[in-house]
């Protein structure tokens, strides 16, 4: 059930990302809805099917985005791994984990995209990329992660109902 739920959630997330979120820019950066969905889903303590969601997000990213070498999709897999690690380390500090995962996730995603672009021959000035794109994107992601975490948490609670101990 949780795996099947990934298709409409991530599908709708991609539609919103392409048509709406990418039109809202701060300097030249924008939020990443799929990143926020993956982080929120992974951080929920009862969620089990984390990697299935990550693989689906990766496949969709490779299909939809023009990122060279599938860099955007691959970054989602790495970010999921990092988030799983943070969940195991900071399981009592939920708010801190959310923020750290978002910051690190945005950074990893942009590193992958910059490397992909560089290997394809584009000239990417790192200082411009950091100031104009990465930092504004990080700010927007931090702004949106809390409401998205609440939303995805509710979904996860519904998908994985708490077992009552007798």
């Amino acid at each position, binding site marked *: 059930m949780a795996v099947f739920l990934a298709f409409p959630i991530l599908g709708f997330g991609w539609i919103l990302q392409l*048509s709406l979120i990418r039109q809202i820019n701060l300097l030249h950066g924008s939020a990443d809805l799929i990143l926020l969905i993956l982080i929120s889903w992974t951080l929920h303590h009862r969620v089990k099917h984390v990697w299935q969601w990550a693989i689906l997000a990766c496949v969709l990213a490779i299909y939809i*985005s023009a*990122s060279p070498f599938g860099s*955007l999709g691959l970054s989602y897999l790495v970010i999921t791994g990092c988030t799983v690690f943070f969940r195991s380390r900071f399981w009592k500090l939920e708010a801190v984990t959310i923020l750290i995962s978002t910051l690190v996730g945005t950074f990893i995603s942009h590193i992958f*995209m910059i490397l992909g*672009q560089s290997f394809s*021959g584009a000239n990417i000035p790192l200082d411009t990329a950091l100031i104009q*794109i990465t930092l504004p*994107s990080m700010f927007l992601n931090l702004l949106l992660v809390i409401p998205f975490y609440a939303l995805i948490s509710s979904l996860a609670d519904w998908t994985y109902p708490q077992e009552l101990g007798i």
Partner: protein
Amino acid sequence: MTPTITLLRKIVTSVVIIGIIILAAGGYFSFISNKIVEPAINLQTWISTRYLAVKDLFSGQKDVEMLRQTNLELENEVTSLQNNIIDLKNQLAEVHILSALLNFARGKPGNQYLAATVIGKDPNPFMQYIIIDRGTDDGIQTGMPVVTQKGLVGRINAVIANASRVQLITDPNTDINVVIKPSNTEAILSGSITGNIGLDFIPQDAIIQLNNLILTSGLGGGYPEDIMIGQITGIHKKDVELFQSATVQPIVDFNNIKIVLVIMNFKPLDITPLIPPELP
């Protein structure tokens, strides 16, 4: 009583009654009728007012509910009409854009154009791509140039059945052969991650000035020639360097593209077989 007296009595009574009626009709008894009728009217008014007040007390709630219902219906109608106004304004703006594109298409009758609406942007913020709502079902192929009535937008990079991805000229992986007018100097236009475009490989002896126009040169076969791109806004020339460079203001507003034209009858050339292999 004799019949004569009875008859006389009847006649007198009738005359008196008729006389009273005539006098009353003539208004001679009005002061008497006013005195009698006025209190009756006052009493009736008093009773009627109280009755209406009691009636309003019980039917007022129903009237208030009816007024609220009517108010709600009118508010809904106003909202619906406002939505219609917004839709109509959007359609009007679209008509203006399409009209401008049509005029552009009529100005270049040699090309075949297909209009497409921009429906999204690539999720990678380091790349400048847009997604349009036309695909292979409409005859679009990879490599077709995309323009607006103002100038060059980019090129089709990937296609599926009913959508395509367009690589904008502002993308950092874009390199376009251009010509600077009026000096007819050739250069290479390239994009950047911030969406700015610039010219490179301008010969040092080339004479270029601010506000010179940049058009596609057609070299390399990637784009048709003579499509407007922009104007030079800054020139960087150093004697110690091999080439000049320049910054360009694109003529198309890439932050506000809504409808584009795909040039359907242009086939990009693949000149890689003509490029000689590198010598070992």
